[in-house]
């Protein structure tokens, strides 16, 4: 993670508190990982004592549980229940309200409301960081953008962390998004807890981050600390729980729209939409309109939606994607194939959340592998012919 010209510093837990204080002092709302409702999730924090010290997680198909660690690590868990998505791209966003009482409706845009304080993230995983990069591309680099997202994002400060203890559902290495944050952060932290004192190697990615780091008691990172930081990242990379083979994935998906895999997944999928809700890159939304009982005000909200719901594809005459097979196919094909055509990258960062939170234990990596196996099986006898 060390870049030339960038001086890494070593910071103790107290220094992390100073970092939080410096952010709060600058008016940031600081989102950090914390234990809530039996999971680790980002919440506004003010103290390092709110970090999940000594907690780790065990994640597998349809299962998430916290476990007690035998060390004092604060960041030694894999991705939490949600990414930065609910903060930067909320599930419900007021777009505008209109007063209809007068002769002419008056429309007030919600972006003109008093701005919320800027956000800072402390302890953002590199998969989630990559997902923010994807949302930047989807939501604010095209002809039209999401004004609210762009405003919120502009002021957001990010302190990323290297994942040191990935979960059984992680496959960021396959997607080339982790476990070590490479870009897109203001500060990047690698926690060292296995040997020596509990400490953090911190590197700045922006002038803003550098300036912040100056506010924190630190020492120049020793060569040993740098080597140790490098090593925990490499070790984490070697301990991925899952693999997703990306070879010719776009063609595989585009060419196999009639694979029996889709029927098989459809027989298990409950179309509960969990996978799209936890996915840090899923961005589909709908609109809800509301008016008060007297009809004098109307409000418009943008709300998360999911390609797994039936209403999603309604047009006159019925849903375009009536069957479950077509909906799972749409989700996976969009994520792993069409996304490349639309945005120049995969839509999956390998965080594994859709695997963990699917009540039916459906695993995107396993479904891709099965799709590939059946496609190759079908090809082989043909190739054998003269």
């Amino acid at each position, binding site marked *: 993670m060390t870049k030339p010209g960038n001086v890494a510093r070593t910071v103790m837990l107290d220094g992390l508190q100073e970092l939080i204080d410096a952010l709060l002092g600058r008016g940031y709302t600081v989102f950090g990982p914390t234990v809530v409702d039996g999971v680790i999730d980002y919440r506004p924090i003010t103290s390092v004592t709110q970090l999940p010290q000594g907690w780790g997680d065990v994640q597998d198909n349809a299962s998430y549980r916290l476990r007690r660690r035998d060390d004092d690590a604060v960041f030694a868990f894999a991705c939490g229940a949600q990414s930065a998505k609910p903060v930067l791209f909320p599930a419900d966003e007021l*777009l*505008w309200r*209109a007063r*209809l009482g007068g002769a*002419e*409706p008056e*429309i007030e*845009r919600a*972006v003109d409301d008093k701005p919320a304080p800027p956000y800072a993230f402390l302890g953002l995983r590199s998969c989630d960081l990559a997902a923010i990069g994807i949302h930047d591309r*989807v*939501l604010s680099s*095209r*002809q*039209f*953008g*999401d*004004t609210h997202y762009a405003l919120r994002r502009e002021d957001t400060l990010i302190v990323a962390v290297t994942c040191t203890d990935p979960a059984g559902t992680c496959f960021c290495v396959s997607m080339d998004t982790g476990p070590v944050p490479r870009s897109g952060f203001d500060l990047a932290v690698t926690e060292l807890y296995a040997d020596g004192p509990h400490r953090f190697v911190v590197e700045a990615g922006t002038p803003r981050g550098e300036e912040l780091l100056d506010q924190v008691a630190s020492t120049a990172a020793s060569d040993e600390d740098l080597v140790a930081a490098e090593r925990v990242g490499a070790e984490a990379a070697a301990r991925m729980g899952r693999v997703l083979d990306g070879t010719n994935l776009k063609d595989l998906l*585009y060419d196999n*729209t*009639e694979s029996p895999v889709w029927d098989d997944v459809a027989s298990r999928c409950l179309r509960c939409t969990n996978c799209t809700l936890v996915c840090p890159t899923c*961005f*589909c*939304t*709908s*609109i809800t*309109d*509301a*008016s008060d009982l007297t*009809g004098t005000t*109307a409000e418009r909200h*943008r709300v998360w*939606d999911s*390609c797994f719901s039936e209403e*999603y*594809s*309604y*047009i*006159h*005459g019925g849903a*375009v*994607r*009536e*069957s479950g*097979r*077509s909906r799972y196919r*749409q989700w996976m*094909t*969009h994520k792993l*194939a*069409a996304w490349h*055509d*639309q945005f120049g990258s995969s839509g999956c960062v390998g965080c594994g959340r859709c695997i963990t939170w699917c009540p039916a234990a459906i695993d995107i990596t396993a479904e891709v592998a099965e799709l590939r196996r059946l496609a190759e099986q079908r090809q082989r006898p043909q190739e054998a012919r003269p």
Partner: protein
Amino acid sequence: MTELLEATAQPTPDPPTPDPMVPRVFRVERTRQDTRDTYTLELSPLDGEPLRFAPGQFTMLQAWGIGEVPISISGDPHGSGLLEHTIRNVGNVTRALVHTSRGATVGVRGPFGTGWEVERGAGGDVVFIVGGIGLAPLRPAILHVVRHRDQYGRVVLLYGARTPDDILFAPDLEHWQDDCGIDVAVTVDNAPHSWRGRVGFVTSLIPRAGFDPLRTTAYVCGPEVMMRSSALALRDRGVAADRIRLSMERSMKCGIGLCGHCQLRELFLCVDGPVLGFDRLEPLMSRWEL
């Protein structure tokens, strides 16, 4: 030559409003009932700035507090400045829209999407193939051709409606046929005994339409199955796939490529379409529930 180009040029569509998710307010100046379930609204902008558009573009039209739906612009691109929308009442929002009374206001976002690019068909024959309400999105393109009639070769309009009572814009059809040099052929799916016209699917009109496939551009709008069979029939006769233009319908919640609903594999039909060439669409239209 420059004169010709200027004459054919489409008005430049308006740039999106500062925030494309926030509507402009338009007042309903006139309403007209076209058929049993279809109405035309003529709208004027409260801010006085007429909405310029390219034929084939749509707006997101909204009934306050009820909802917002994509509706094509059906008026004359070179017209009076009133925004025309022809709406079939099929559900919640369209019901509220068609029953909006004169003087009331609606919200308008847009114009959005790609147009028919009917000026690119100049110099050759033109075939419009229409099913049902599809005549509304095509009307601005037809009006453009009518206005620049001398720039086009043979012009044919093949129109299929469900029943004689569902025929839209009957006065227009007559005018185009009688005064504008357009060969209009109408067919219906079902008809009472009193109907003297043709009965059958609109595709059955293609063989007798008498256009020169090699110099024809076709504009097709209607239900997806009808567009697909029309496009295949045209291509079989030798019309180039990229000269067969279709307007696709999908659920659209934003109109600006953000909500995801209108995706057809890699396409966001609200910004990459709704009008696209059959060369692009054929592989996507032939897969079930894509």
